[in-house]
């Protein structure tokens, strides 16, 4: 570990520690509600890491959407359902399965680690959707900026990337969500016709 001796590095250590501990806790808690609350803490730590990177808008949206909206519904449903404490013992009865899963997990994390160390996820010169610091007030399209996400232009940057460059995927996602909502309504709707038919038979 050769971390630079800056406040950001220590904050990153702090948040990543919380993130890992709470993520492990999501899996190993016996009570589903405890797991869900641990997941909320994971989202918080992730928001903190986004904040360190300067993406304050993404950090806010992480808290607002994931912790504030989605997990509220998940916890809400978990609390209403009758639940019992799960136990790990039923997975431990099959030793072969445990060994296989451990090998898989080890291999996965090894692959992840080696990919992070050797590969280049994207090179900064080709990155899209960010504006350079010197022209932070003006957004230009197509984007020609390079290095960092400017703190001033976070919202404008995300908005421009969403509505100019990636407008088609964005609209397709909204269409997908509409389909999901309609599907949920149809599934949840009571079948009035069938009940009437039953009444006539009886």
């Amino acid at each position, binding site marked *: 570990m050769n971390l630079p001796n800056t406040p950001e590095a220590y904050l990153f250590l702090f948040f990543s520690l919380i993130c890992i501990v709470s993520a492990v806790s999501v899996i190993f808690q016996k009570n589903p509600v405890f797991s869900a609350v641990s997941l909320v803490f994971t989202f918080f730590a992730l928001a903190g890491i986004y904040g360190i990177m300067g993406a*304050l808008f993404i950090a*806010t949206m992480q808290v*607002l959407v994931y912790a504030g909206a989605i997990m509220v519904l998940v916890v*809400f449903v978990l*609390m*209403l359902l009758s639940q019992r404490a799960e136990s790990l013992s039923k997975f431990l009865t099959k030793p072969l399965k445990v060994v296989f899963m451990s090998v898989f997990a080890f291999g996965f994390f090894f692959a992840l680690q080696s990919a992070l160390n050797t590969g280049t996820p994207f090179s900064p010169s080709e990155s899209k959707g960010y504006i350079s610091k010197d022209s932070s007030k003006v957004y230009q399209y197509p984007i020609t900026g390079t290095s960092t996400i400017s703190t001033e232009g*976070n919202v404008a940057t995300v908005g421009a990337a969403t509505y100019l460059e990636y407008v088609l995927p964005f609209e397709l996602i909204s269409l997908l969500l509409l389909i999901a909502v309609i599907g949920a309504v149809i599934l949840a709707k009571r079948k009035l016709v069938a009940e009437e038919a039953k009444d006539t038979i009886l």
Partner: protein
Amino acid sequence: MEWGYLIAWAIKILSLFFVILTGVAYYTLAERKFAGFIQDRPGPNRAGPFGIFQPLADGIKFIAKEEIFPKNVSKAMYLLAPTISMTCAILAWAVIPFGGTLPAPGWLTTMTGISTIDLQVANPDAGVLYMLAVSSLSVYGIMIAGWASNNKYSLLGGVRSTAQMISYELPMGLSIVVIVIMTGSLKLTTISESQKDMWNILSPPGFVAFFIYVTAMFAETNRLPFDLAEAESELVVGFHTEYGAFKFAMFFLAEYMNMITMACLTTILFFGGYNVPFGIGNGTDYETLIGLGFFIIKVLFFAFLFIWVRWTLPRFRYDQLMRLGWKKMIPWGLFAVMFASVYTVYWKETWVRLFL
């Protein structure tokens, strides 16, 4: 230099914290005094002249009481719930701009090397979104309290309150979007400064959005006429039935703190923030302090509105609450957003000229 900034920030944060806690304590006294006035009785008047030491006495009482853990609660969650409520209530104060910039007193400049004080702790790019995010988190406190107490009244209170807060976050968000469209920024200081000539309440879409916002505000803070989470006549006191002593005090303080936060946000979004009407004290040395004074007066009015409404209106029924939220407020909110877009593009310049 770095350390100077840190010390200055610590001083600012601690002094704000002190002011808030004192303010909240006296807000509870004000609530009881006005309740007494409205119900034609004196209210608390034993501790000190006019009962002004009542909050102190209450605080000592809360701390000195025995901490009781009911038998069937899940202890970690039971303790986590009031902590979350209180933390979220305090977090929201980080971004509220109370005024402009003050020159720092001499001793502070020599000690820390800073020359001006912004009357705001942090000024993020998306301050409005931060407020929304923090207020949407406060639902966890209530929900976990209701579940961890292992009590039917508590659970019902928690479930009701969660559903209510999720429903009313949408109209509240929509009414804030109206202001964001008219201003073109998510920054709270920019929103304040854009209202120098005309408060947002005086523009037609802002006028519509204001009523949506105020209704949603009452629902978000779980106050009458929407206090179904507590509903004394049905649920004992709802989600904090099993809480006593200091744990209850934390819920209590968080509720009143949220109310003051909402009053501040109303002032910033619709009533010009720290702008002073008719240019009183413009260009003088005391401009910032006058602005701060006007901000506090406006906030106190909305804080009073909470008390006034609570002791005047009866409680809504639960189905009425949901019908109002989903069938009235959200369509009106969507209408206000469209109205604001049209207004901003076509009519805004003409309308603003009326006020210059």
